[in-house]
């Protein structure tokens, strides 16, 4: 008989064939974090360029001071669910502030962005409903779909025409269909064609959910994300987001212009059956949200850095995702090539994320660089120089 663990053997073998020694690109141990953009890995000082820390707020003095105060006044944890003893004044204040920030009547805070997707999508859709999602959606969205028992239909990535075709096939079921897309896609950093998607929704009906995990604080005049940037917020029924990227902490949320959003609190298991975020987390997020609203210069700096990096790598001839953004993805060939390239970058003092299939679109290995407003120009140029030095590696081996 097979043991419970046998099914992991092939994954484990594949990993060991690829990576024999530390430091490893998978689960890299960061020995020291010195600032939003500097750390130490394997005894080396490195530029941190694989962090999702888009606005560099993890060390913001005001965020840290607020977290310290909350820690001193309310303790290390809430030790309970939002439905029981885990809703402090600060949790409800943050919900009010999120609602105000998004100019929508309701907001619900979850313990992570992953849970926000499980808790919203997994509760909204039921067995008779249908969810139509972009093929490149994040794993948390796929997992949420599985919780629903609804019919799950994928459409081709960023292809509004394909979405329309799939809605048309559903006939009158589209009235209750939940369409799910992301603002900026986490792997290639490309943006959804949201105006086209909204036009399709208007023609066929349904509800639209946009996961703005990577676009909150990054896009839109006020940092509300892609829907704001594209001027279609009124057509977006639900926004899901996370505190773990531009806001520099951990936690997640959902907002909606449907006041009934509040009702999911009574039914959403990922909301009810887990402890709420710690007071210190909530305190730093409240300040970070305020910074997103009040310091648009951070957003401009992030974009200046993103453009510099993207165009610098493009000039060197790297194959990149389709457009500049806070995520700049360099497509490589085989996983082996990806591992070698990652080590080469580390030796040159640059830490980025290596992402391997099947987590990547198109089955390619990719180096996923997160740009931060906290990177200075010299750091961006050092990243470009490290990539330039390693470029011959790709030219010699080609793909696969």
């Amino acid at each position: 008989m097979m043991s419970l663990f046998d099914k992991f053997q092939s994954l484990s073998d594949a990993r060991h064939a690829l990576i024999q020694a530390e430091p490893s690109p998978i689960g890299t141990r960061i020995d020291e974090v010195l600032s939003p953009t500097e750390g130490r890995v394997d005894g080396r000082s490195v530029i941190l360029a694989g962090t999702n820390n888009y606005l560099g707020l993890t060390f913001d003095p005001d965020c840290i001071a607020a977290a310290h105060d909350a820690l001193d006044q309310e303790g290390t944890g809430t030790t309970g669910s939002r439905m029981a003893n885990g809703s402090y004044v600060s949790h409800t204040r943050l919900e009010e502030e999120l609602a105000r920030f998004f100019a929508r009547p309701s907001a619900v805070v979850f313990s992570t962005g992953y849970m926000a997707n499980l808790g919203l999508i997994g509760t909204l859709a039921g067995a008779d409903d249908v969810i139509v999602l972009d093929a490149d959606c994040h794993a948390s969205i796929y997992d949420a779909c599985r919780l629903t028992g609804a019919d799950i239909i994928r459409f081709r990535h960023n292809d509004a025409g394909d979405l329309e075709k799939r809605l048309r096939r559903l006939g009158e079921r589209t009235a209750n269909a939940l369409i799910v897309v992301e603002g900026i896609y986490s792997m290639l950093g490309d943006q959804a064609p949201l105006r086209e998607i909204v036009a399709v929704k208007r023609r066929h009906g349904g509800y639209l959910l946009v996961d703005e995990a990577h676009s909150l604080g990054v896009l839109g005049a006020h940092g509300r994300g892609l829907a704001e940037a594209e001027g279609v917020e009124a057509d977006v029924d639900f926004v899901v987001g996370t505190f773990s990227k531009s806001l520099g902490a951990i936690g997640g949320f959902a907002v909606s212009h449907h006041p009934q959003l509040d009702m999911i609190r009574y039914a959403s298991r990922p909301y009810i059956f887990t402890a709420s975020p710690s007071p210190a987390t909530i305190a730093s997020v409240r300040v970070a949200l305020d910074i997103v609203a009040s310091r648009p210069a951070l957003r401009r700096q992030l974009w200046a850095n993103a453009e510099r990096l993207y165009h610098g790598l493009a000039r060197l001839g790297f194959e990149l995702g389709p457009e500049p953004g806070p995520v700049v993805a360099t497509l490589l060939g085989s996983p082996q090539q990806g591992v070698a390239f990652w080590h080469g970058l580390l030796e040159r003092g640059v830490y980025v994320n290596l992402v391997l299939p099947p987590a990547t679109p198109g089955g390619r290995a990719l180096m996923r660089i997160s740009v931060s407003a906290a990177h200075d120009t010299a750091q961006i140029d050092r990243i470009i120089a490290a990539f330039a030095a390693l470029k011959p590696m790709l030219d010699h081996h080609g793909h696969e």
Partner: protein
Amino acid sequence: MPQHEQILERLMAHLERLAPPDSNLHPDIDLVSELGLDSVKVMDLMLDAEDEFDISVPLNILADIRTPNQLAQAINKLLESQ
């Protein structure tokens, strides 16, 4: 309305594009454990199948499907129920 055999034949043509070169394709091959397709490739096969037969094949039926034969059966059933 296409019969099972016709559906299968068209599915196999799509599979040929997704499968590793030189794989020994047959209607009862296990898409994941034998052919080595990852979950994303299997879902991409569904996209092709949806367009080929102009139907919606919900991902939730994937859990019960291991082989091209089974996928053809499921599609046949969906077409008949339309």
